[in-house]
Each structure stands twice: as C-alpha cells, then as structure tokens.
C-alpha cells in the first residue's frame, strides 16, 4: 500500500505569502474601485486628497487643475496638477508604485489620507484595466529640475517598475502632476466627480480649482479665503485608542529599552507613574525589554491600559474648518436664503480627539419638496457613498427636525429646502471600511454630531419662524385687500358712492395696519 502524503504537507505546497498588490486585485471594492464609475471618482479623490494635504503641509494656497478626457471605449485619462511642494526624485517611484507606502500611516494627524494606499492603488487600477503606466511630473523648487516618470507596479512583489524617467521642462516653480489612464465611466450628478469637486470646494474654501469635465466644460471654483487651515499638529497615540495588534507592533518598533520608558515616550498623556501603574496592573516587570514582551503579556498590558485612569489626549491637534469658513464655503457654492454653522469643542473617543462641525443652508434654489441634501465630510473629504451606514446619517435621522420647522417621517431624513453639512475632524477618523465612505457608530461621536445638529437646527427654527410669520402676515394683508374690494362694493352699492374711492381709502387703512410689514419690505412699494 502506497503511503499517502499527509494532508497538511499537501496543503503546505499551496500555501504561500500573498502580496499586498494581489490582495488588492481581489479586494478592490474595499478601496473604492468596485465599478468603473466609482473607480474614476476614487482616482480623482485620492489625487486631490494628496495635493491638498501636501499644499497645507507646505503652507501653500492650493491651486489644483483637474482634467478628465474621454478617450472612448470606456477609457478616460485623468490629470491632476497641483502647486504643492513636489516630491523628491528618489521617493517618486515608491509613492506611486508601491502600495502602503507613505508618511501618513505612521502618524496621528488630521490629514485627509490615512492609510497611504490610495494613489498607488489608483495607478494600479489604471495599469490593470488599460495596461497604461502612471505618469508623474514633479518639481520641488524653482531652480531644481522637474522629473518625469512612467511607473508600473510589480503586483507580485509590490515594487515599482520604472518604465521611463527623464528631466523635463516645467514652467511651475513647484508642484506635482499625475496622469492615469483607466477604464471608467463618467456620470454627472449624485455620487459623481462633479458633485465630489463641488463639495470639496465647500469645505476647502482656500482651494482654487479648475476642472475640465469629459464634456470639455471648464468649471472654475474660486477661492473664498486666503486663510490656510491651521497646520495640524502631530500627536502620539493615546493609550485608550490603541488596538492590541498595533500595541504589539509598537512594542517591536520602539527605541525605548524598558517597558515603562516605552509607555512614557511612545504614547501621549503617560507619565512615569501611569506607566508603572499599567505595568503593575498587567503583572509585567516595568524594566522588561519591550521587544521581548510575549503576546500574553501584551494582552495583559492592553487590558491594564483600559483599567488605568489616563487623562484625555490634547485636542489642539484637531483642526476644524471653523464656523466662518463653513459659511463662506456654503455661500460660495449654494444659493440659499439662510446659512448657519457651528464648530463644537473638541471631544474624545477611544483616546482619539475629534471635532464635529455642522453647517446649514436653507431656502433659495434648494428644492423644497425633496429630502434634505446631506453632505458628509471627514477631515475635509466628502463622503459620497454608503450614506445609510454612516454615523452622521444616523444622527441626522434621529434628530427631531420637526422641532426645527422641517417635516420628517419616522426613520427618514427630513424634508425641506435644506443643504446640511456635517464635518468630522480627527487625528483618526473611524471608518467602517478601508474605502473610507462611512463613519463608524461610536456613541461619543454620535452624541457630538447630534449636539451640532441641534445647534444649527435651533438657528434654522428661529429663522423659519420669523420668515413664516412675515409670510403669513403678507398673506393676511392680501386677504384683507380682497375683503376690502368686497366691502367697498357693498358699501358703494348701498350708499351710491364711488367704489374705487372707498376701496382706496380702505387700502390706506389696511396698509397702515401693516406698516411694520412695509418697513420690513414685505409690501412692494408700487403696489396699490
């Protein structure tokens, strides 16, 4: 009898490490490339996020030029050009040709991109669907050369492959321009790129954007302020926010030689005493070498952290847009009769500081009979998909908008001529998935959102009350005018006097009665 190979041995032959790129290929929906329409949006979005973050870091007012060209047969060429600080030559291949390479993943900072997976994923998507490499031009200083690259990604090894590189002439002092050809579908309106850019312009009033769409229409989004957002401060993670896996990684990577030192220097708000208390609670010797902490001990540490009282993280690392700039952004892009905004004080979830802001626009050109338009943002990035899964939507639905003058059915968004903006700024925004489309339902976050909504809601209610009252008075005046006509006719018939004169006299009395209204400009001065 032939001896059978053990199953495990057989399986072992099939087991091998999977490259990140291969993983992406199979899971591209997680990163926002589920379909051609979304792929186009995600590509532009990742490029613009990078441009805006880079400009802000370099304290440059961003001028961004976006062009989308329809190449036919479902292919589009996307060009995004910025006036940012540029990228040094050696880094260009890694940034655009390698997944999970970047500076943001290791930092806790209020920036748009968080995982460093975005732009190279877009490049890879283009490469996979069209075979075309990504091209990059970048220049870091006026007297330095501009570098041109054509890159492909080795999807097995997650390494960049340089197809072409050369020095080119570029009239810009500094900046980066990328071009990706990808299989895509262009659609105007909801969840499309036009909507994305419009919303981006609202929450980034310091941005000057020129956009040429596939229909060759050139749209310009002017800058509403020269004030750059405050530079976000980088903070160390707070112990409450760290997950076990990350804690284990941090233990391996730390430069500290003792556990106590590690806790003190790699986290914020941890004093020597607090570090000691954590070690004692976990039953781990505080002088242990962090790299030698076993998994069980790490787990004990993790549990001990939750039990030790640690003061909340500093909140100055979170940079809101600000009430005034939210108003400017809304006024710039939405024609309405009334605007209001609120920036809440910082708050903390799981050791991560965050700030909720809300803005509201009412009336004007906004459709009256539809459900309100809800604009969701996380660190100034519009969230266009998975609305129903998002904590912001949940908070809006569970707010009693009837109290604020809008109609609302149970479990639904309110109805009325309203654009509602909600922005969450945080060093670490908790998304429900890697495609960063919906905010996770943390009770602390929902509570803050609701408080912000109630604030703008109250402001709206007071406006509506005033507005509606003026409207009602206007209607009453109109009615009184009609009654005057009737009365004049009856009195004229009985007395044989001139009807028009009686009516005009009555109207004088009626107008005096509504003098207040007239003062408010509710009655057209020419009206008889």
């Amino acid at each position, binding site marked *: 009898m032939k001896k059978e190979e053990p199953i495990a041995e057989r399986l072992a032959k099939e087991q091998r490490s999977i490259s990140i790129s291969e993983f992406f290929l199979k899971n591209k929906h997680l990163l926002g490339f589920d379909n051609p329409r979304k792929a186009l949006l995600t590509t532009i979005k990742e490029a613009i996020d990078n441009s805006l973050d880079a400009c802000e870091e370099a304290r440059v007012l961003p001028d961004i030029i976006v062009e989308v060209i329809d190449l036919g047969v479902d292919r589009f060429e996307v060009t995004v050009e910025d006036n940012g600080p540029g990228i040094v030559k050696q880094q260009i291949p890694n940034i655009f040709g390698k997944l999970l390479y970047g500076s943001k993943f290791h930092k806790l900072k209020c920036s748009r991109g968080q995982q460093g997976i975005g732009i190279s994923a877009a490049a890879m998507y283009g490469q996979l669907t069209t075979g075309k490499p990504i091209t990059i031009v970048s220049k870091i200083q006026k007297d330095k050369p501009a570098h041109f690259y054509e890159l492909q990604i080795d999807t097995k090894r997650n390494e960049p492959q340089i197809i072409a590189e050369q020095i080119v002439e570029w009239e810009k002092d500094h900046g980066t321009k990328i071009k990706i050809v990808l299989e895509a579908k262009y659609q105007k309106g909801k969840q499309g790129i036009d909507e994305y850019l419009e919303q981006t312009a609202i929450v980034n009033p310091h941005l000057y954007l020129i956009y040429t769409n596939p229909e060759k229409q050139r749209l310009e989004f002017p800058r509403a302020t020269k004030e750059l957002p405050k530079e976000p401060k980088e903070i160390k993670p707070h112990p409450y926010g760290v997950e076990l896996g990350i804690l284990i990684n941090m233990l391996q990577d730390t430069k500290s030689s003792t556990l106590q030192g590690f806790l003190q220097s790699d986290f914020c708000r941890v004093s020597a005493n607090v570090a000691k208390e954590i070690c004692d609670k976990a039953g781990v010797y505080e002088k242990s070498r962090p790299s030698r902490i076993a998994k069980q001990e790490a787990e004990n540490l993790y549990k001990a952290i939750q039990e030790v009282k640690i003061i909340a993280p500093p909140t100055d690392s979170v940079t809101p847009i600000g009430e005034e700039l939210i108003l400017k952004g809304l006024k710039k892009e939405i024609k309405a009769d009334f605007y209001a905004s609120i920036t809440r004080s910082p708050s903390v979830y799981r050791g991560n500081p965050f700030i909720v802001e809300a803005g509201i626009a009412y009336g004007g050109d906004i459709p009256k009979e539809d459900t309100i338009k809800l604009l969701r943002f996380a660190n100034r990035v519009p969230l266009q998909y998975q609305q129903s899964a998002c904590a912001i939507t949940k908070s809006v639905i569970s707010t009693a908008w009837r109290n604020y003058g809008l109609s609302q059915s149970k479990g639904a968004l309110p109805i009325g001529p309203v654009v509602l903006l909600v922005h969450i700024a945080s060093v670490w925004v908790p998304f429900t998935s890697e495609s960063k489309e919906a905010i996770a339902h943390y009770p602390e976050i929902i509570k803050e959102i609701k408080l912000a909504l109630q604030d703008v809601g109250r402001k709206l209610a007071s406006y509506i009350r005033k507005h509606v009252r003026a409207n009602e008075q206007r209607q009453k005046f109109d*009615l009184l005018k*009609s*009654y005057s006509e009737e*009365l004049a006719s*009856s009195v004229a018939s*009985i007395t044989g006097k001139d009807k028009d004169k*009686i009516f005009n006299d*009555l109207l004088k*009395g*009626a107008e005096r009665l509504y003098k207040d209204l007239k003062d408010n400009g509710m009655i057209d001065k020419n009206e008889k």
Partner: protein
Amino acid sequence: MKNKKEDSGKSVDEKINKLAKEVLNQIEKNNNPTVDMPLRGITNVYFDEKNKIIQMGNKTSSRSFFNLGQSKKFMQTFLAAKVIQDLIKQNITVPIRSIYYNTKHTIEGTKEETWNDQSESDPIIEDLEVTLDALREELHVRAGSKGAMVGNLTIIDSGDKIDLRKMGSGGWSIPSIVENNIIKFDKCEATYILFIEKDTIWSRFNEDKFWRKNNCIIIHGGGQPPRGVRRLLRRMHDELKLPVYVVVDSDIYGLYIYSVVKQGSINLAFESMRMAVPKARFLGLSSFDFEKYKLPSSVILRLKEVDKKRIKEVMGYPWFKDNKWQKEIKHMLKIGVKLELEALSAKNFKFITEKYVPDKIRNKDYLD
C-alpha cells in the same frame, strides 16, 4: 326690554343706509370701520321675572374691519345688508337660504368663498336683525318653514280662507311669516292648543281626529319650532285666548323645546316679547311618568354623559330655577332615563291620544 333706538321708527331701508353711511364716514377718515351690535348669546340675556320671558340685555359688541379676526364677518355683514336692501327695493321676500346662494361667490384674488355654508350666513342675518332693530319679515327674509296645524279653526292666509278642519292628513303648513297682514283668524270653536314636539306623533293625533273629539287645535314645529310656529302660538294664545299645552319627549331636548315655547330662546332673545307664551303648560312626558304609568323597562333609553352634562347646564338657567322644574329635572338625572313619546305605544297605539293627554288635561296634571 328691547333697547329701542331713536331711529326705530324709520324704515329698514333707511336704517341700512344710515349704517352704511356711518361706515363710509369712518373709511373716509381712515378710521377702523366699526359697527356696534347687540350681543346675541347666553352672556347677554337675562330672565325677565315680571314677564317670565328671556330678554336680551344691553351688551353690545363691536365688529371692526381691521381686526383680523373680524374682517371677514364685517365684510359679510355688508354683503348681506346690500342684498337685503335690494330685496326691500324690489319688494320680494326670499328664503334665508336664497340669500346664502345669491351672495356666495369666490372672493377675487383668493381661494375663499364669501360664505363656506349657510351656517355662516344665517347668524350674520340675525346680527343684522338686532343691529337694525328690525323684524325678520321687515328684512324680506323667510326662514325655512316647518310645522303644521289642524283644528277647529278657520284662518285667512294671504286672503284665502282656510278651514283647518279640512286639511286631510298633512295639515296646513305654517309659513315663516305669520303677522296679521298675512294670517288672520276667523271662526274658532277650539278651547285649547296642543303643541306636539314631533310631526310623527302629531300625525297620530290627526289620524285619530283628536282635535275634533277634544275641540282643540293641534300644532307641531318639527322638533325645535321655527319662528313662524312660535309666533303663531303666541298670536293664537293672545288673540283667541286659548291655553297652550305642550307634549314633548322626556329628555332635556324636549324640556328645552318647552322652555323655548314658554320663555323664548337665548339666540332670539330679542324676539321673546313677540313669541314666548309664558303661560304654556307642560303636559309631559314627565320624568315621573315612567313609574306613574308603569311602563315596561324595555322602552327606556339610558342617559348618556352628554345628556347629563346638558341637563346640569339647563338646571342652572334662571328660568328653570323654580322648584317644580328642579324636581322634574333632578328626577330625570336620578333615574338616569329618557323616554320618547313613542314609548307610550308600549301600552297601546291609542294610549297617548285616548288616555294620556285627555286625562292629563282633565286632571290638570301639568306644570306651568
């Protein structure tokens, strides 16, 4: 007593002119056009102990065009006044409902009608009646007529001689205006008038020729009697010197109908002097009749909460303060029962005509 104005001698046409001129004057001076009118309703009536009737008090309310809650009513008042003046000029009398239709239209520039329904126009005409201190017939407006009469009496109606002994089963239908320029009394043998709440019961009496056997007049007002019926009762009572007996259901509505016949109504308190019959006698049904006539308990209706509420309200009216009435009403509350006239049929169909009413009259078994 009615608050006679100095111009009460003038014709209604002149009064309307005067009212409109006053308002015109206010309009020209840019004042708030205002009309003072006697207040109709419970807050402006009192019980005249001497005459035993409900009278209208002196309270007035003003109706102003520039008071938003009153604008429409003010406009409607003059809409009605204008039409009434037209009627006077043309010398035609129309039903009150026709005034409603004649003046109903969409107000220009609005989606509103001048009147939503007749229940809006009728009170405005009544307001005008008291404001102009005019009789309904002087306004050339007729109420809907209901009610019928037969009996040992001959009348002259608009010049036609009518023998009320020969009116068949339906009887003579009572018009809304019964003043002596229209209705005159001729030969009369009757010795009393029997007022019956409902037309169905009245028909029973007429079928049995009750009036012939008992030498009387029988009359009904189809529930709450309209002005014509009340005015006619009063005239027959005064001019033919006939006592009036009233037969109604034993419930608070029946009792109130009796009260209206006897003392007048709150709404038309200004007409009590011409309409009420203070000596009208209440034959029944009394709340004590159920036990007295040993009626089977299956014929009774239980008082509902709304009935009880209304009973308590009526008990508080000054004209029901008399002990005998309090006793009657309290007993109704106590047994918690109401009885319809038809319930007497439980005895037999002719019980009411052959036994109940004749016995009560003979035995003077009534309240007054």
